[in-house]
């Protein structure tokens, strides 16, 4: 690591806001040397609770995050917020507007709000987000909140950086609950029905409850093997389904049934309950041992992503130095060859080299410890 980066890292650890801001920029830009910086950051992390908040546009995410930050600050905890907005697929430009909603804590430097745009990098955003979380963690933030529009797989990957994921479902999204089922609703650890003072809020709560119970009965989704346990209990003492479910919720520490919280973010209603549920989920993770498993999975995914990006970059570099992809594409257009044949030709020598990649040696280094 060069001297400038070392100074920057020292300044971050000493608590200089600008150093944190600058390091996040380096992470976002994939600036030269950012990897060494992030490597160094890891030694100072692990103390923050990371919370992901997602939901459809206009669900009230930013407003709720604002109130969340305000409440944490009242409790004396410091907060970091990463707010992600889409970027234009055409120009790469973006208007990052989440900050406007975060007015309650403005002027308080212990709430560090950082807006990030998607920048159109495939898979890269979740890595950049995870790295930015590391920077805030090393800086000493107690709570780190990641906020993003839940629209697709990319966003799902982003919030998975969090220990606890809250999904906002505004009232009147009855129909979209159906369409979302296979997507972001599955990753929720806590459901928030925001704008709960509006018509249809009760109905939305009911629909979510129904969905969760169906999920629990057939044993899929966030509640894991809940269904099987419920069955066993029922067989044992002959209680009906509803009782069996309540029993397992209380008895089995391995189960987590996502709670449904009603909030009115603009007024701050329900925020305390929401915070309690977030804390409850965190202690569930730790007590059940799920946390270690979750963190392990996350790092596995980070390693995979890094390897994928790096191998890709290596090949891109080779392709560039060989004159770029255009000539090959033209050959496909004129019918001389096809994309599969080209990929095969390019990758055969790479595959031959793989025997030299000594992954076992890397593993052995840590096995002995």
């Amino acid at each position, binding site marked *: 690591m060069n001297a400038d980066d070392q100074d920057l890292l020292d300044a971050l650890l000493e608590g200089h*806001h*600008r150093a944190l801001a*600058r390091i996040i920029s380096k992470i976002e*830009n994939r600036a030269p040397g950012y990897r060494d910086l992030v490597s160094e950051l890891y030694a100072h992390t692990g103390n923050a609770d990371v919370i992901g908040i997602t939901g459809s546009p206009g669900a009230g995410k930013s407003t709720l995050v604002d109130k969340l930050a305000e409440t944490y600050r009242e409790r004396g905890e410091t907060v970091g917020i990463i707010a992600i907005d889409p970027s234009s697929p055409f120009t790469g*430009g973006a208007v990052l507007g989440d*900050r406007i909603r975060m007015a309650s804590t*403005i002027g308080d430097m212990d709430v*560090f709000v950082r807006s990030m745009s998607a920048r159109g990098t495939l898979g890269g955003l979740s890595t950049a987000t995870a790295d930015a979380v590391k920077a805030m963690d090393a800086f000493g933030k107690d709570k780190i909140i990641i906020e993003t529009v839940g629209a697709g797989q990319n966003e799902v990957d982003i919030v998975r950086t969090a220990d606890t994921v809250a999904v906002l479902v505004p009232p009147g999204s009855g129909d979209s609950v159906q369409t979302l089922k296979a997507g972001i609703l599955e990753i929720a650890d806590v459901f928030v029905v925001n704008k709960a003072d509006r018509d249809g809020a009760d109905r939305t709560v009911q629909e979510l409850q129904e969905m969760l119970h169906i999920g629990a009965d057939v044993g899929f989704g966030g509640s894991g093997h809940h269904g099987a346990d419920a069955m066993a209990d029922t067989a044992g003492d002959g209680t009906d389904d509803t009782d069996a479910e309540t029993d397992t919720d209380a008895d089995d520490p391995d189960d987590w049934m996502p709670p449904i919280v009603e909030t009115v973010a603009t007024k701050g209603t329900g925020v305390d309950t929401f915070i309690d549920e977030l804390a409850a989920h965190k202690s569930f993770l730790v007590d059940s041992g799920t946390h270690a498993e979750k963190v392990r999975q996350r790092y596995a995914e980070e390693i995979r992503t890094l390897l994928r990006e790096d191998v890709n970059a290596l090949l891109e570099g080779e392709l560039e130095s060989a004159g770029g992809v255009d000539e090959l594409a033209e050959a496909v257009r004129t019918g001389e060859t096809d994309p599969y044949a080209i990929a095969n030709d390019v990758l055969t020598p790479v595959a031959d080299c793989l025997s030299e990649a000594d992954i076992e040696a890397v593993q052995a280094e840590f096995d002995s410890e």
Partner: protein
Amino acid sequence: MSSEQDEESQSQPQSHGQGEGRSIRCLVAKVGLDGHDRGAHVISRAFRDAGFEVIYSGLHKAPDEIVQAAVQEDVDVLGISILSGAHDTLVPKIMDGLEEYGAREDTLVLVGGVIPEEDRPELKEEGVAAIFGPGTSIEETIEFVRENAPER
């Protein structure tokens, strides 16, 4: 948006900077008791279309709040829109705040709005890089940002 401008922004995608993911970050700020934000909106949109990342402050912000946003977001460019005539008190406060966080040196500060000719030298002395009055073309502003955004 004119098609001419679209072509321009596409022909120089992220022309500025060294890193592969580099993109110019701007904070468009409305400061003080001035409710005229049409200009700030137009600039935000134009910057977005030019491929910049724009953070918009919202209305009625205090100088401290602008400084906080500029520092945390680590922006290359701070564009302050003032139509209230209070530029001679508000702008120095922002510049002092940036100084406090060591961000004054390498942030390109622009002022847009109604600034009388006789007030301009003073603002330039404060460290404002350029002042764009009524009638400035969007292209001119974007070009200025592209050429002068600080290398970091």
